[in-house]
Each structure stands twice: as structure tokens, then as C-alpha cells.
């Protein structure tokens, strides 16, 4: 019974330590990850639901395919992955430490015969003299050796960068640290969105997973601006934000310029410029109407979507307005309005009226010239709000990973043994990585070794 139990635990343990499992996990993670890049994730667009059959939809949602990176089975894969990393390190690390702290000071017969790098030196002096001379030589050319007397021979052992054998484990540990950082972030962090109308302030934001969350302070949007390139694409959108505590600006956090790629952080909460628009509420637009045959210009104040009837029975309606028309009408710039005019008894006509191009407005061959004079509507700035206390742990993990990979790939544990017997000595070399590179170094050293006069 006892042995059976033991063998069960051993086989579970072996399973978790095995590299077969690592390979299966890496391949499984790679393959399953593809699903989430093909199927839409999160809130499904209605067009997608319309084109997919009901049974498929049901099966996919049951399997968690629409939020697959948070589905139970993907998380389970990551757990097994972590277990794999932890158990294989527990199994191997002690051996590696032992290997580093208790190196083979004496080179056995087997290793001597199988060594790829070796050279011989004959000398006429005494074995003691040979040993002393070779200790000095190794110390000068490579590193200070440890001397062991064994079966009437002296074994000199010297090594360099033994610790680099730990590089691999640093890489593995770094993965676990990144996971820990991600878990901290998901437990104690949050993400959301807030829009602030120019000149107003907010003290809460909308969380991505629903619900309002108080900030604990106020954020005031002093000003918002957009600049455009000549081709009409946006160049920079810029909010000027001030943090208020108890209604008073916080020194160092007042009039802060926030643009894309330049966020503002206060009390661990970071605000990222992400979108903008025109505040719809309260926005009034000014439209002028001038009779072409030279009458007085009339000025109207209207809201988007509202219609006005003129004295002659013509109605006009402000369909929409923008404060920058470039992306809709290349070649033009500045504020503009789309207006629909219905002359009495005629079909409606739609056109764009520009604030900065009155001549263009006048060119529309009609009895009435419509001008757009802008708006008193204000802009709002859209900000992502995020707090992630785990992010530094993630960066720590990333840093360790880069260092670990550098050490594991590009550094090598180099060892040299010199076995001194009566009348001759042998030098042997071994490197854990990049044998070709070490061979060059070994050849240089052994060349000098063979020319020693003892």
C-alpha cells in the first residue's frame, strides 16, 4: 500500500517536473491563444451575432471562447504552467547549487578520456615544482585554482562564472513574478473611463466592468485643444488638467498638460488622454442667413437637430456641426455645419457651411446665403483612468527575464583542470555554452601551457 501511494505521488511529481509537460503546455498555450485572435472578445458586435448560427453561439459561449483569456480552462493552463515551473525548479535547483558550490575538483578517468579539449606537457623538474609553477600559470592566465592531492597526482581546478548556470532559473522565476504582478493588478487595480467637459470637474469615473467609482479628489479640465496636420489627420490632442483637493488646486498638479503618450498620475491613479468630442448638452450654434439680393443678415441661435422656419416659409435645420472639418472636407479647415434647407414646396437640400470660408458659402447659387458662426458648445476630453499597483512587479519580472536570458544564452561556465603527475601534466577544458568560443580561449592558454619550462 505504502509503496503504491508513494509511487502515485512520485509519478504525479514527475509529471509536474517533466519537460514533456513543458513542451505540451507551450504548444497548447500557443494553439489555444489563436482562438481569441479570431473570435471577437468581450461584448459581441450585433453583426457578428447575426451571422453566426445559434448553436455555434451557444457552444462558443459555453466554452468561454468569447472571453477566452479569462476562461477557466485558459487560467487552468496557466496554473499548470506555473506548477510545472515551480516543481521543476525545486527538483533541479539543489543539484545546480551543489554543482556550483562543490565542483569536481578531481578529474576522474572517464572525464579525462572523454574530454574534447586537452593538451599535454612534459617537464623535467620535480612534481612539486611543476605544481607550483602551474598554479601560478593558471592563476595568471585564467583564475586561481583549487589544489587537491589525489593518488600521488595534483589536480588543479579553476573555473569562471559558475553562477551563470543560475541564469535559466532566473528566467523561470521571472515568469512567476510577472504572473504575481498580473494577479496583484487584477485584485487591487482597476480601469475605467471619464469624460470631462472643458471648464468642469469630476470626482468619479466609470469602471470598465460597470459602476461609478469615486476618485477621492476632483479633476478639473481647464482647457482642451486639438491640432491637425495639413492633411486633416489629428496631430495632437491636449487637455490641461488640474487636480483639486477640497476645491483647491494641488501644487504640482495644476495646469498639467496631458496628451497621448504623456499621462498624468496622482495618488497612484493615472489619467490617459484617449478621446475627445463636443459636449452635446448646452451647445448652441450661430447661423446667419443673408438674402443674396442684398437684404439684412439675420442671426439665429439653434441647437443640433432643431429646425427654424424663416419668414418666407423656408425651413432650415442644423444637422450637425464640427469644430474641425478637415477630415470630412479635405482642403477646408475650421468649424463647419451641415445644414438642410427646404424652400417652400421644394425638396430639401443639404450642404456644408464653413465659418472660415464665407466665399464658398456664397458660391452656393441660391437666394439665401447660410453662414456658420461657430458655437458656444464646449469640448469634452475623454480620459482612460487606471490604477495598477502590480505593474512594478511586472516590470521587475521583465527586467529579471531580460537579465536571465542574457546570462543563460550568452555567458558560459568555463572550467579548466590541470592534472600534474611526475614528469608531465595535462590540461583539460570544458564550457557549458558556446564551446566554439571557449575553444579559442582554451587553445591560447594551452599553447602557452605547452611552452612552459619547468
Amino acid at each position, binding site marked *: 500500500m505504502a509503496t503504491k501511494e508513494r509511487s502515485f505521488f512520485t509519478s504525479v511529481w514527475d509529471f509536474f517536473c517533466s*519537460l514533456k509537460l*513543458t*513542451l505540451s503546455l*507551450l*504548444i497548447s*498555450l*500557443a494553439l489555444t*491563444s*489563436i482562438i*481569441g*485572435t*479570431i473570435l471577437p*472578445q468581450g461584448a459581441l458586435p450585433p453583426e457578428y451575432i447575426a451571422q453566426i448560427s445559434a448553436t455555434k453561439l451557444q457552444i462558443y459561449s459555453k466554452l468561454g471562447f468569447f472571453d477566452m*483569456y479569462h476562461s477557466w480552462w485558459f487560467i487552468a493552463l496557466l496554473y499548470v504552467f506555473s506548477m510545472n515551473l515551480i516543481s521543476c525548479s525545486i527538483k533541479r535547483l539543489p543539484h545546480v547549487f551543489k554543482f556550483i558550490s562543490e565542483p569536481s575538483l578531481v578529474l576522474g578517468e572517464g572525464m579525462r578520456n572523454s574530454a574534447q579539449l586537452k593538451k599535454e606537457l612534459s617537464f623535467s623538474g620535480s612534481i612539486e615544482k611543476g605544481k607550483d609553477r602551474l598554479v601560478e600559470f593558471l592563476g595568471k592566465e585564467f583564475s586561481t585554482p583549487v589544489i587537491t592531492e589525489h593518488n600521488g597526482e595534483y589536480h588543479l581546478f579553476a573555473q569562471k562564472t559558475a553562477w551563470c548556470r543560475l541564469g535559466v532559473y532566473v528566467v523561470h522565476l521571472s515568469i512567476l513574478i510577472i504572473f504575481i504582478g*498580473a494577479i496583484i493588478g487584477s485584485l487591487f487595480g482597476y*480601469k475605467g473611463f471619464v469624460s470631462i467637459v472643458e471648464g468642469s470637474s469630476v470626482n468619479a469615473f466609470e469602471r470598465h466592468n460597470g459602476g461609478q467609482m469615486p476618485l477621492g479628489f476632483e479633476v478639473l479640465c481647464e482647457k482642451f485643444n486639438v491640432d491637425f*496636420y*495639413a*492633411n486633416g*489627420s*489629428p*496631430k*495632437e*490632442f491636449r487637455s490641461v488638467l488640474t487636480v483639486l483637493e477640497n476645491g483647491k488646486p494641488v501644487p504640482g498638479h495644476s495646469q498639467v498638460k496631458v*496628451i*497621448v*503618450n504623456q*499621462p498624468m498620475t496622482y495618488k497612484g491613479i*493615472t489619467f*490617459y*488622454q*484617449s478621446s475627445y468630442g463636443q459636449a452635446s448638452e448646452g451647445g448652441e450654434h450661430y447661423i446667419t442667413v443673408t438674402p443674396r439680393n442684398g437684404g439684412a443678415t439675420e442671426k439665429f441661435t439653434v441647437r443640433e437637430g432643431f429646425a427654424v422656419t424663416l419668414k418666407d416659409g423656408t425651413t432650415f435645420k442644423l444637422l450637425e456641426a464640427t469644430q474641425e472639418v478637415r477630415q470630412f472636407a479635405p482642403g477646408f479647415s475650421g468649424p463647419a455645419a451641415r445644414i438642410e434647407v427646404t424652400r417652400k414646396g421644394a425638396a430639401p437640400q443639404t450642404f456644408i457651411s464653413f465659418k472660415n470660408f464665407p466665399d464658398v458659402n456664397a458660391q452656393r447659387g441660391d437666394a439665401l446665403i447660410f453662414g456658420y458662426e461657430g458655437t458656444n458648445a464646449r469640448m469634452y476630453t475623454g480620459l*482612460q*483612468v*487606471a490604477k*495598477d499597483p502590480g*505593474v512594478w512587479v*511586472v*516590470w521587475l519580472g*521583465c527586467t529579471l*527575464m*531580460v537579465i536571465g*536570458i*542574457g546570462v543563460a*544564452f550568452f555567458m558560459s561556465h568555463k572550467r579548466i583542470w590541470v592534472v600534474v603527475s611526475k614528469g608531465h601534466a595535462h590540461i583539460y577544458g570544458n564550457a557549458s555554452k558556446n564551446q566554439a568560443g571557449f575553444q579559442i580561449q582554451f587553445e591560447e592558454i594551452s599553447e602557452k601551457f605547452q611552452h612552459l619550462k619547468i
Partner: protein
Amino acid sequence: MSSSMLFNVTTFTYLISMLAFFAFLASKNKSIGLAGSFIAYAGLIIQTVAIGLRWKESYALGVGHAPMSNLYESIVFFSWTIVLLFAYIDIRYKYRIIGAFVMPFALLGMAWAQMGMNTGIEPLVPALQSNWLLYHVITCFLGYAAFAVACGISIMYLIKTAAESSSTSAPAGGLMSMFPPLKVLDDLNYRAIMIGFPLLTLGIITGAAWANYAWGTYWSWDPKETWSLIVWFVYAAFLHARITKGWVGKRAAWLSVIGFIATLFCYLGVNLFLSGLHSYGSGG
């Protein structure tokens, strides 16, 4: 002298270099091989100048930015890194013939970019106005290029093993004698991936750092991010299979080819077939 003219010269130079390498394969004439290398280096220098010039031109247009901001510029940069890595391997390991299997990737990239794409210099949208763009793109593309080189070497490996197993007689004969020994190809494949994997890792990390800096989320499972992780998993599998289970030779070569197909999908397929946050999609 405009950059677009120099890019055309570059494309032509890579074509000649590739043809020289093919002639080298067929003729075994060493000086043709040497010419292939030197033409490739000349192309590399011309392309370097062209990239610098394009950078300068963008400032003259008032939209100054490093030339790595759309699909066209990224493909040009990708070709450049491939030739750069080939030069490194050629000089360091002296296996020139690899050029016959690596230069086609560089040529294909340049030809596609020059003929099939909008080559205009565009202003940077706000999301791309960051130094992180530079670090991110450079590390990613150096990694991709190393994988391209590894893939070319693996194809040589697969051709050579196939040829050797079909002609049971002498492995000495014909074209195959031009190829480096199988053991060398296998080792070079591993070395190229040892260069590519750390760079890809850095590329993913700089991307995450940038995403976090620009919008507060270091990882959002956007298709491009996910595919870069898939590529990373494939090469991590390659490294583990290799050290610990001795997956050398044919299987390693296949894994390297599969890894590069995944890389290409990450780079191009995601933009062409899937939607996401990354910007290169619109450059086509």
C-alpha cells in the same frame, strides 16, 4: 537624390546579389560568391543611406519622425535587418552560401514594398508619437530578421537531408557539396534563434511598457500582442526541446520554419486578416 530612388536601387542591388548567390550555387565559383556578398553589402549601405534620407525628408515635410511608422516603412526596415544579420553571419561564420536562402527574403520584402505599397511619408498620429515606437520596432524587427535567417538556414537543412537520403550514394556530389555540413546548419539555426529570442522578448516587453505608458494597460490581448506571444511560445518550445530532449536536426529545422510562419502571421497576417490596435494595417 531622393530616398525613394535609392530604395529602388537597393531593391535592384538585392536582386543582383540574390542572382549572384544562385550562380554561386550552380557554378561553385568562389569569386561569384564573393561578388554576391559584396553586392549585398553595397545594397545594405545604400539602404542605410536611403533610410536616413527618408528620415531627413520627413523633417523637411514638417512631420519629422523615424521611418518606422507604417507598413511600407516597417517592411523596408525588416529587409534592412535581414541583410544586416546575413552580413553578420557571413563575416562571423564564413558560410556565404546562406545568402542564397536569406537574400530572397530581403528582396521579396523590398520588391513588395516598392511595388505594392503607398510609399508616401505620413505624419504620425498621436498614438505613435513616442520614443517607445523606436525601441519597440527596432527590437521586434531585429528579432523577426533573426527568425527569417534561421528559417532560411532550416530550409537549407531540410533540402540537404532530403537530398542525402534520396541519393544513398555519395553525399559529396552536386549542389549539396556547396551547403555547409548538416551539423553546422543545425548549429547556425540554433544560434540565429538565440539571437532572435532575446530580441523578441525585448520587443514584447517594450511594447507592453509603451502600452502601459500610453493607455495604462500593459497587456490587453489584442491580436497582435497575442500573436507575438504565440511566436514566443513556439521558440521557447524550440529552445526547451533542443536543450533537454535533443530535438536537433530535422525536427528542430521544422520547428524553426513553423516559428517563422507564425512570425510572418504576427507581422502581416494579423493586419491583413484580423483587426486590432496596431497601426500598420492601414499602410497597404
